[in-house]
């Protein structure tokens, strides 16, 4: 499903060359649930951005369903994100002036779905995450847990094959975090491939597999329970 072949990313910051990712090679099969852990600045976000077709590598190739993501044109890449990738953000990134229903409609609008169908699908998705009674609420009128559930519904809108979650529980209390991870497990059971960047060891352990990043390099790959998990604070 997802493949990185010897991918590196370097950029200049105040005259210094910074290596964000260093020769990363990995393969994530369809239906996998991978957590990515590591200290801050280790390249987790860079890895996620590259898998999502948002940041081109300096070297190497990124493939999604056998297509080389960065050999596509920007327009084709946008189409690929729209149809195959769902993002979940740490700060939810909901559009503040739109209601919960309209936020979920955004990806459907981008996919040029007819307005009535947009509303029906968005309503069904919000019902699925338990927000049937919050359709007309704006993000500012919802709790953080509810906002993240709206973001999950939005992510599911175009039925993506791949879910890229960027610290999905970072801003949530433990109870709500468990609820969100529960949803992700549920989506994974339905066949979706999930890559989740997290600092939360409990969340990381719920994945099938864990990748550990250190200074831009993948240092450890393994099953969730055996990945040599170390609390981030120990290495940060």
């Amino acid at each position: 499903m997802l493949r990185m072949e010897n991918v590196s990313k370097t950029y200049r910051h105040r005259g210094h060359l910074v290596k964000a990712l260093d020769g990363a090679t990995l393969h994530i099969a369809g239906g996998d649930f991978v957590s990515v852990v590591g200290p801050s600045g280790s390249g987790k976000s860079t890895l996620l951005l590259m898998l999502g077709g948002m940041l081109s590598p300096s070297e190497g190739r990124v493939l999604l369903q056998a297509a080389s993501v960065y050999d596509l044109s920007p327009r084709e890449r946008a189409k690929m994100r729209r149809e195959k990738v769902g993002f979940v953000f740490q700060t939810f990134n909901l559009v503040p002036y739109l209601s919960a229903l309209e936020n979920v409609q955004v990806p459907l609008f981008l996919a040029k779905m007819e307005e009535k169908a947009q509303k029906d699908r968005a309503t069904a998705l919000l019902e699925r995450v338990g927000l049937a009674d919050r359709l007309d609420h704006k993000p500012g009128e919802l709790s953080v847990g509810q906002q993240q559930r709206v973001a999950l519904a939005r992510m599911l809108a175009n039925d993506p094959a791949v879910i890229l979650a960027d610290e999905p529980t970072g801003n949530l209390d433990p109870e709500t975090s468990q609820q969100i991870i529960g949803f992700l497990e549920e989506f994974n059971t339905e066949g979706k491939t999930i890559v989740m960047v997290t600092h939360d060891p409990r969340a990381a352990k719920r994945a099938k597999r864990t990748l550990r990043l250190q200074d831009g390099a993948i240092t450890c790959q393994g099953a969730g329970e055996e990945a040599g998990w170390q609390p981030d604070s120990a290495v940060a």
Partner: protein
Amino acid sequence: MRLRTLVLREIFERKSQLLTSFLAILLGITVIVSIKNISHYSELAVAREMDSLGANVLVLPKSATLQDYYAADMQGETIPEEYVTTLAMSDLAGLDNISPKLSLPVELGGKTFTLTGILPKSEFQAKAAWQGAGIFSRPIGCGASVGMMGSDDKKTLARKRVIETLEDNEVLVGADVAATLGLKEADKLDVLGKTFSVTAVLPQTGTVDDSRIFAHLHVVQDLSQKGPVINAIEVVGCCQEISKGLVEKINHLLPDAKVVTVMQIAASQINVNRMMSNLSLMFLVIIIFVGGASIANYMYANVFERRREIGTLMALGANSGLVLRIFLLKALILGLAGGIGGYVLGTILAVTLGPKLAGVIVLPMPLLALLAVGISVGLALAASFFPAWRAARLDPCATFQEV
């Protein structure tokens, strides 16, 4: 969800931030519309006044003066009638009407009157060489002569300087002539041995025309035995063209004649028009700089404020074209609102203040709505283009900066 919904929701959510830019464009358009509206009706009013006063440019013999012209005492000096042809066939803009004249003093009933030869409009049109090139085929310049050429009522000569037809045996008599000689329409009048029929008695004008007897130019030329000559060509020139050097151009065309402007008549209109035009231009420049800078500044700030939202949209699959459209549609809505609002407010101001400021009745001009919306939308789009373009090229990675 539609693009329009997305844009309108954002506008209403952050309307207070948009208010300054909207007010800048609204007030600018309001001022432009009100000035244009008032100046249009002011120009029409002055043009009507000019029309009633008669010619504003005179082509005279070299040695003649304005006083000679007003005294109708120019029988000594003449210019060739072909000057009329030269003028009529020239490509000079702003010649709304030309009227050649030859005057002779005549004794009638013990008093001296002036027999003035004029050329009716039909004579111009009959000359094939003039058709298609003459002044009658041109669009009318400043509007001063609107309605001048189409009337069959010969009394219009008193005010409009032109009549449609005039037969060889017909005369038109001024009010003083008619009163002194007891003439009325259809009476016979003997002048220099030729009998004429009085076609019309002209209304009192308070000018030297009241003492004139108007006959066909070629008949007067025959009676004077001077050949194809005239004393003067009265020109109703468009005032904008006069201010752009029409007199110099006629002088260049007819170097052996003297071309003078009736300055005291033309100057007032030229000054009013120039002032209004300058004022309008000044406000256009102000709105372009102040309004444009305000919109551009607001749009840059808006793009900066929304960079995470833009990044999110891109992560959800929006391409840069859609992001560009989001900001340009917002600019279009701003421009439309400013243009329509400015037109309505400007028209209300013009209609209310016009009679007080310019002393003229001002009516709404729907055509100005197009100008208002055109300027407003054009300005809003132009000022927003670079901020919108910048938004479209924004790095979507900004959405992930918290990690």
